[in-house]
């Protein structure tokens, strides 16, 4: 069983290092959202764009752009206070696939404002894309 678990560890590390799960989540979401006639060609086109973006350093079009993030924040902040609670913030990040369930985020007790939310989402998305 030693050999099995070390290969399993290897495989897990590989997934982590290249952020495969995030990439696959993104691909699957794009497929289900845009529902192209030819799924394989569509996936190939996304991956090609990604490859070119990595090589040429051009910013890659994210799944959610700033207006979507702002809209999401407004949905969470139903009473228009201008900030959302820490729990809501963590849940939102999990829904977007940008943080894992057991990651510890610091709670500064001040509530999260829209700019902070946007910054955090953008920062994490950038982190993920730079790993490809």
């Amino acid at each position, binding site marked *: 069983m030693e050999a099995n678990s070390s290969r399993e560890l*290897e*495989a897990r590390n*590989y*997934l982590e290092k*290249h952020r*495969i799960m995030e*990439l*696959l989540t993104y*691909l*699957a979401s794009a*497929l*289900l*959202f845009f*529902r192209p006639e030819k*799924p*394989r060609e569509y*996936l*190939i086109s996304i*991956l*090609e764009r*990604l*490859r070119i973006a*990595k090589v040429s350093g051009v910013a890659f079009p994210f799944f959610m752009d700033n207006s979507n993030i702002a809209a999401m924040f407004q*949905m*969470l902040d*139903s009473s228009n206070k201008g900030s959302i609670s820490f*729990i*809501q913030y963590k*849940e*939102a990040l999990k*829904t977007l696939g940008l943080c894992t369930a057991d990651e510890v985020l610091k709670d500064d007790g001040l509530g999260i404002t829209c700019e902070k939310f946007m910054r955090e989402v953008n920062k994490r998305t950038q982190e993920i894309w730079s790993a*490809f």
Partner: protein
Amino acid sequence: MDATSAPHRIPPEMPQYGEANHVFELMQNMLEQLLIQQPKDPVPFMIEHLQRDNDYVPKIVILGPPSSGKTTIAMWLGKHLNSNLLSVESLIAKEYSSLAADARTHYQKFQTLPDMLLVRLVQERLREEDCVRRGWILDGIPETREQALMIQTLGVFPRHVIVLSAPDTVLIERNLGKRIDPQTGEIYHTTFDWPPESEIQNRLIVPAGISEGETARRLLEYHRNIVRILPSYPKIVKVITADQPCVDVFCQALTYVQTIHRSNAPFTPRVLLCGPVGSGKSLQAALLAQKYGLVNVCCGQLLKEAMADKSKYGEMIRPFFEKETAVPDYIIMKVLRQRLDQQDCLERGWVLHGFPRDRDQACLMDSMGYKPNRVFFLNVPFDSIIERLTLRRTDPVTGERSHLMYKPPPTMEIQARLLQSPKDSEEQIKLRMELFYRNSAELQEFYGQAITLNGDQDPYTVFEYIESGITNPLPKKVP
């Protein structure tokens, strides 16, 4: 209320698209290949994998005792599926390979191959372009458990494993009649499979090692090994008895190879039950609803409920019901839409019966976006329907329904006062049946992937057939 913890309302087009295009299996296959090969650059690798589009090429292993017909079946499958055949002989005979040359020298000396060498030969062959594109069929490999494990560690795994089995005495006798055509390599038999052309007959030779003692020895070896190979392929093995005509074995093998194994893809059943009156649709729908939590949508019931609720659709329907004419399609569709769009139908799936009854209704439903993913046609012969329906009785005092043959009333007194509904008279039933059969051919054509079942059995048998039709993926037909 926290917006992110409320139940998410997923538009139904998404799961429908996912099912129709097998998105889950697509992603799963890609992830499998990524984990096995672990390329340094995942993105170009994924592009190449998607372009190759070889998720469903045949990957078959055929195992069996000597002279069970493995090679024959493997060759036939290879020709039919347009795939590549690999056996120990073909691997050794390969040119342009240093591994094969080593193997040849070893084989000449010892008459066997070391496991590692054989497995590496297999790996080399499977990496070639034609195997990647058209799939492969392994004939008689792996021979031992060690080989099976080694092949698995290299990331090669079959999708279907066929094991031929027959009693030893049959096999020993069969082996004595084996003849080989030296030119084509095809195997013939003096009794079962004699070639018609005399020129082939003349050049057949008797292969070495078919004496009884030799066969018995090889059988012993086989039995020792096969028991330990099978646990490596737990869910994909099918045992076919080789003690029947070759064609039958081939038929069974081909059907098996064309089935797709069930995957973990999310699946909300949207079942449509079609059949003449009295075929058991309502009963099966109720059983399905009870066991799987699907929503039982009976069209007739829905319309009656609308009338009883005195909703606006109910008022539209009432005049048609009173005059006993058919309700127009667009009204039925409106009522149906209202029901099928509700949250419980979207989440749990539905089983629909009583609609559509002809092609136009089916087209209408399809254009509104309600596409069932399993369609069943229940066939029941006329006499059975008559028997089932004309013996129905209702007790006017208690309201209980019984059947004179299947669920007789408890006492003679009750039986004396039972009444029959006018709907259940023979002429009425005949009329309704003919109405159904007039439209059924078109309906079957419309729902191309429908499954036809024999409804003339007891309800639980029919239910099991329906269950297996729903839980197993629809077979992919080889063009």
